[in-house]
């Protein structure tokens, strides 16, 4: 059962923000640059990332540890660590740019429009407040509902994510890891947001529980028409749950496109390496750290392509010029010099490049 964008936006229980442009896409991130200030300079954790998210769509965000996935997610709601700053680009929600918003104005968008399920709900839940009260909190204070109404809604939400009624009064430490993550998901749904971000929502859970949580997310997405950004190390999870996938490398987009296309015919050498590390996506749940070499230091990234030092196809131009992003007819976007941005190549199905060393993958 697929829903059209119109139906999904019609599902909204709250009017769009005042400044919203109803014709604009749900989320449009353009050339986002989020850096962290250190004494030695700026860590360019996210350095020119663009993507969009349509109503009801699920976007998977993958890449090695430290490539900027979490920073990208936190930039959307502007919850960066104190030394982090968005130094360029825009984050448009319904056509409203959130980057220049004041902290006060930004608070109105958090949780009501974009909520986050953080990694490891053990620490993401307040240990001294009952779980149901933590879920009710945004309903009361953000939606202005009464105490009793908020409590009732919190109970409904716990029902929805499969937490038994009798655990309503539980504190976080009284729940299992899986239950806590379910509670976290219930909390993320509290204000019926347009977008839910899951930042590695299943890491630190055992495999059985991981599968259950993913199933729950998938089911909620279908039933509620959520738009989802799912951050994970696990490509098989993206293959199972997402419509589109965005592969990040060292703060930049390497490749982005529909899941079937990218996984069937990976174009960027980094994507190929990643997928090569997963001979069978559905059977093998290995992590991504299997490619030889290290990602570059983001304090002082190399000029040109940031993957060049590890790339088996590296060409002289690669370490000189930033590879431009090329968009193909099948909706895939790649930033790599193997795919020049001239018209003859773009659109045509590109020849699969080969190079010595790739067979190792």
């Amino acid at each position, binding site marked *: 059962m697929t829903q059209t964008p119109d139906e999904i936006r019609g599902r909204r229980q709250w009017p769009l923000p005042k400044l919203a442009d109803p014709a604009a896409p749900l989320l449009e991130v353009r050339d986002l640059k989020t850096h962290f200030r250190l004494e030695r300079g700026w860590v360019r954790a996210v350095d020119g990332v663009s993507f969009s998210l349509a109503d009801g769509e699920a976007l998977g965000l993958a890449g090695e540890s430290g490539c900027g996935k979490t920073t990208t997610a936190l930039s959307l*709601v502007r*919850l960066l660590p104190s030394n982090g700053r968005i130094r360029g680009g825009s984050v448009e929600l319904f056509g409203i740019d959130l980057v220049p918003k004041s902290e006060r104005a930004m*608070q*109105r*968008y*958090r*949780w*009501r429009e974009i*909520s*986050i399920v*953080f990694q*490891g709900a053990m*620490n*993401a*839940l*307040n*240990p*001294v*407040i*009952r779980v149901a009260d933590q879920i009710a*909190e*945004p309903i009361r*204070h*953000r939606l202005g509902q009464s105490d009793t109404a908020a409590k009732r809604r919190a109970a409904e939400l716990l029902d929805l994510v499969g937490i038994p009624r009798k655990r309503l009064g539980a*504190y976080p*430490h009284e729940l299992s890891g899986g239950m806590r993550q379910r509670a976290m998901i219930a*909390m993320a749904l509290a204000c019926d947001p347009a977008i839910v971000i899951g930042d590695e929502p299943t890491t630190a859970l055992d495999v059985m529980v991981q599968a259950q949580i993913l199933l729950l997310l998938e089911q909620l997405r279908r039933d509620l028409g959520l738009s989802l950004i799912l951050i994970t190390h696990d490509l098989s999870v993206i293959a199972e749950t997402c419509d589109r996938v965005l592969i990040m490398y060292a703060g930049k987009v390497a490749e982005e496109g529909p899941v079937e296309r990218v996984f069937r015919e990976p174009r960027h050498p980094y994507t190929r390496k990643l997928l090569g590390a997963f001979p069978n996506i559905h059977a093998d749940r290995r992590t991504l750290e299997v490619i030889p070499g290290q990602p570059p230091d983001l304090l002082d990234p190399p000029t040109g392509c940031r993957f060049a030092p590890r790339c088996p196809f590296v060409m002289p131009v690669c370490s000189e010029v930033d590879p431009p992003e090329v968009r193909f007819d099948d909706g895939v976007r790649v930033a790599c010099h193997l795919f020049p941005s001239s018209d003859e190549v773009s659109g045509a199905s590109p020849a699969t490049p080969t190079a010595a060393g790739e067979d190792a993958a």
Partner: protein
Amino acid sequence: MSLRYLARRLASAAITILLIVILNFVLFRMMPGSPERILLGRIPNVSGEVVAATRERWGLDKPLFPDQFVAYLAATAQGDLGFSYGARGRPVTDVLLQKLGPTLLLFGLGELIAIVLGLALGAYSGWRRGGVLDHLGNGLSLILYSTPYFLLGMALLLIFATGLGWFPTFGIDTVGRVYSGPLDQIADIGFHLALPLATVALGLVGQYSILMRSSIVETLSEDYITTARAKGLTEGRVLRTHAIPNALLPAVTLIAINLGYVVAGAITVEVVFNWPGLGTLTVDALSSRDFPVLQGVFLLLSVGVVLANLVADLTYGILDPRVRT
């Protein structure tokens, strides 16, 4: 808080008090100087018979164990702490009760002010880390923290009592004054209380503020604070409902531990201001080797510390659901 937790805390407090009672006995029997010498100190050339009679009257002729020990335990359990060697043989319990009020007034109120003020200041400067008030408060807190009580007390005394003459220099009330009513008396006591109270409160506020500040700073870096912010709650609400309740946990424990050290402070502050409390009583009893009074004071103060820790444990049990099992 579960009944089990409550019972365990109470039992542990009771056992600690019993150990203190025993230690108190042992410690004072080990002290140098024989009690009958002090009892008969002012009478020159006492005969052996008089000494023997005195020993018998005070039960000092009996063996330490079990006779003296059992008698001591039985009497202590009934609130009978013996008689003062000095103060014309008044019961120690009477002497203690008379001095307890002023000490409780001074230190109870001082602790309260310091806790409220210190926690508020610490929470605020931790929240606004790097701000003007943080730098100012941090510097001031460190200075106050490192200033010994007697120095602080002397400074206040010199400036506001001897120098400016705004406050009296010693005692709890004006000697020989006839009060026109209870309000008049309260005003007079308050007047005398001001400087010693300021000394106690200022001496403690720095520690509590530093403690709370670091606790808040640490708490603010926790993941659940990011969650609270992600919920779009205002900074004030994040602080009040998420950061402070968690940051209070280590503060409660440390304040309780601190109460033990307050006893040392009590002695100096009371002596500086000649405050008629347990502190001055201790010093007087020490110099006159009034062992029963000393023993009583030590017992009372130790029990006080145990009770303060019990209160802290119970407060912790209320604040933190994780210990309620």
